[in-house]
């Protein structure tokens, strides 16, 4: 039956899932010798909480279940964390992971809707995810879903917030009273060209969101239990759209990436770097 969330993993199992996701991320970008490991590693706990923490109601055996929650990656280049999570959740075989970015693969460089099943929206052009979520929420409202059905979680990057369309969407979500939407900000402070504060300052980002009528929570984005709890709180709120601002580190879990986040926005590790990364992930260093 496709009626509710997969059973939530316990705290230890969640940490284990995070390790497996991180392993896939570095292996995938190593195999492709391209892709975006930094912004995937920073969002690992977010995706683990969504899919394994009992937050998103979904069914890998029935990806088109009409009343499912939708998880939307707005920062559409962070595909490694999405594919790693969907494979671990059972949407497709982990055998596909090495095909990432190769010709003919389901695992496209940037997200493509329904490719593989479980990917809800095409992206890669930044700033479109929250608007799409507004449309989904209006659709669910028109379809007469119950209050807690068809929630929408949108993972947004902080560099992405430079795009004006986000603010159009944030304005309209509260205007239309779309409480089903929860934005999750991967606040890792780095974007393609470097430090976000130098390129285009977005702070005080929480105050801005609140001024637009959203509920705002701040959380340590690498404390998977804390992320899960914040998302469950947001999910239960039926008064206004919600944002959970996750303080994260770009490249988290792999020392040489975390120490040079701008250098690891969009490239894959070498053989030696992969070995080091896998050792560090296994040891749980950060």
């Amino acid at each position, binding site marked *: 039956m496709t009626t509710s969330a997969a059973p939530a993993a316990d705290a230890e199992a969640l940490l284990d899932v995070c390790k497996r996701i991180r392993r896939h991320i570095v292996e995938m970008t190593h195999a492709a010798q391209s892709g975006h490991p930094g912004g995937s590693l920073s969002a690992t706990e977010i995706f683990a909480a969504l899919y394994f923490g009992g937050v998103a109601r979904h069914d890998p055996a029935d990806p088109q279940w*009409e009343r499912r929650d939708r998880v939307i990656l707005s920062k559409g280049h962070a595909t490694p964390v999405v594919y790693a999570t969907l494979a671990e959740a059972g949407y497709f075989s982990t055998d596909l992971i090495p095909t990432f970015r190769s010709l003919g693969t389901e695992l496209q460089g940037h997200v*493509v*809707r329904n490719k593989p099943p479980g990917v*809800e*929206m*095409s*992206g*890669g*052009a930044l*700033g*479109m995810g929250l*608007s*799409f*979520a*507004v*449309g*989904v*929420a*209006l*659709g*669910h409202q*028109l*379809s007469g879903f119950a209050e807690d059905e068809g929630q929408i979680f949108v993972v947004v990057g902080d560099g992405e917030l430079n795009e*004006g*369309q986000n603010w*159009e*969407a944030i*304005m*309209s979500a509260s205007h*239309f009273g779309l409480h089903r939407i929860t934005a999750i900000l991967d606040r890792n402070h780095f974007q393609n060209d470097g430090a976000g504060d130098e390129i285009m300052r977005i702070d005080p980002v929480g105050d801005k969101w609140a001024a637009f009528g959203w509920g705002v929570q701040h959380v340590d984005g690498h404390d998977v239990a804390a992320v899960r709890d914040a998302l469950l709180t947001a999910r239960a709120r039926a008064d206004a759209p919600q944002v959970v601002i996750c303080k994260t580190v770009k490249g988290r879990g792999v020392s040489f990436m975390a120490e040079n986040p701008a250098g690891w926005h969009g490239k894959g590790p070498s053989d030696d770097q992969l070995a080091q990364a896998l050792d560090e992930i296994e040891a749980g260093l950060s």
Partner: protein
Amino acid sequence: MTTARAAAFPQPPPAATREAYGPALVKLAEAGHDIVALDADLSASTGGNKLAGSFPDRWFTVGAAEANMISIAAGLASTGKTVYAASFAVFMPGHCFDQIRVHIAQQRMNVKLIASHGGISVGEDGASAQAIEDLALMTSLPGMNVVVPCDSVEADAMICRAAEDVEPWYIRLGRPKLPVVYTEGRHFELGAADQLRDGNDVTLIACGLMVEPTIRAADVLAQEGIGARVLNMATIKPLDEQAVIQAAHETGAIVCAEEHNVIGGLGSAVARTLARHCPAPMEQVGIEDRFGQSGPWTALLQEYGLTAESVVAAAKRAIARK
């Protein structure tokens, strides 16, 4: 039957193609289509707000935010709705090309883009308000159906036909009131040229507001003993290539007439077909790669050569090159 006007029938009053939109939406909703319509602060001009009267929960305005509107339309379509999104052709696709590209075309969403106020016939507002490049942008997107009605009857038929499939459409409407060409109704078929006149000396292929002057041009040519075939090419994409090939073989000369830049619209699509299948002399009547300006719309059509006289002259040039 798709019969063009006959002089014996009483002529209905002129109407703008955009005037068909609101009533068509209401008709679709009343017929039980699961439609949602979006506007971006221009709903009185597009007519989209007419849906709000009888079906208030089926219509939303997002304010002056076209990019947001397009991605919202895609999200709505992903929940199974048939979505109509309306604005002016300069803003949609002008303000939201990438949203249309990624969220509508690449995702192949069931969204019908209603682009009103296309072309220079917008009139007095001038260049920034006059879309002369929208057909080029939209036809370049894989999977996008691109249509331009010549009158309000055809516009209604297109808007209703679009609800019958789940593909993305771009429907370009206009502001000025035009004479009705299809006085006896229009059964619109996507991707099919409609032959309004037969002739063997030249084929005149037109779309939108150039169809009616092109019929008049054929009448003038007939008085001079030149037989002009007239095709209403209301679908720019997918183009009716067979009709073009047949016209080239049977008449040996082609003229295209459109209210668009001569680069990237109907003429370009026809030229591509001719070059690949049946090279023949071809002339274009259109906007010669320059922007619009302020002025009454009829004066603008004169200034930019979008007239029956231009079509007559182009036909003679094409025939001379045979």
